[in-house]
């Protein structure tokens, strides 16, 4: 793939790839580094890209792979707390429509929230979520099912 085609077909994807990386690594600086590394790898292998059906899909896959490796190489466990289930008396304060979905997701139990966010914002498959979270694929399916149903319940509660 020549430089011109690379610019036309791959360069515009960087923002989408960035948002996927942010969803996975949960750090904007690391996400930017992951994007840069993704494009470095794509550029190095640009001659092989012509054989691919979808270069954008390949770019996203490469970015996810890099993010998974970054997470694996982390030594310190984050200090995320386990968010409990809300009670009927909970109120949402300062949550405008734009942030509502994120605020609702924060109210899910931690493992459900991780799975749902990786799927919703990272575009991750169940297998990728399993790799990132250390859960089995069967568990991931259950976490997604429960998390998404709970999210809809919460949404219903706060908007109706």
């Amino acid at each position, binding site marked *: 793939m020549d*430089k011109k085609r*690379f*610019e036309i077909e791959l*360069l515009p994807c*960087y*923002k*989408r790839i*960035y*948002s996927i990386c*942010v*969803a996975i690594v949960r750090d*904007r*600086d690391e996400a*930017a580094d992951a*994007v*840069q590394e993704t*494009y*470095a790898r794509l*550029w190095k292998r640009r001659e092989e890209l012509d054989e691919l059906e979808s270069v954008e899909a390949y770019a996203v896959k490469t970015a996810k792979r890099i993010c998974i490796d970054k997470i694996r190489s982390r030594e310190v466990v984050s200090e995320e707390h386990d968010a409990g289930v809300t009670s009927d008396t909970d109120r949402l304060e300062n949550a405008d*429509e*734009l*942030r*509502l*979905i*994120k605020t609702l997701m924060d109210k899910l139990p931690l493992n459900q929230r991780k799975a749902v966010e990786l*799927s*919703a*914002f990272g*575009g*991750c*498959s*169940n297998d990728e979520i399993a790799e990132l979270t250390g859960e089995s694929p069967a568990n*991931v*399916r*259950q*976490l*997604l*099912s429960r998390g*998404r*149903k709970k*999210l*809809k319940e919460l*949404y*219903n509660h706060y*908007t109706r």
Partner: protein
Amino acid sequence: MTNFSENIERARRIIGFYYDGTSTPEDLTWVKQYFSTVDIDDLPDNLKEDAEIFKMIEKENSEIEDAVPDNLEGRIRAIMTEEPRVSKKGIILRFVAWTSAAAALVILLLNILPLGLQNNMLQIGGESLAVLINEPDEDGYVQITDAEDAAKIIAGSMNLAGETMDVVYERVSKTDNKMKKLDDKINKILNHKSLKAS
């Protein structure tokens, strides 16, 4: 079945997989795309809420995309213009090739060109050549009268220069790497500050 009805059926199927935890990323991409283009009021009641949730997820994604660091595109473009670095081995081989060719040329010229000895100094092209080897005289130089010896010494000096270049190259490479690390750190700080400001 109309196109609209087909799309509704497809959306219903995917939503079913979605809550079952078995939808694929491609399924979700399709349904997000569909819900972003259709008027929610036109949807059946049992899909409206899901459509609203998917639209909000897409809005959140757009927010993140809009907050991309300003210099990220520049960093990517810089990758696309990087020329492959000439390897250290390549530089040394080239240098040795050139100096060997130069030494060979000197030897050839010394055997072909008329040479003069003036005041016991070897002369080439009007210039006097004097090199330091062993047992210098009171001026610190030894006169070489044999043309072949002089050419060998010159070639040896050029090889020594090549070895020195090797050391210089290594030091320049180390400095270059340090500068790159510093540049990355500065960019991280600037990005962090700009995110805080926004």
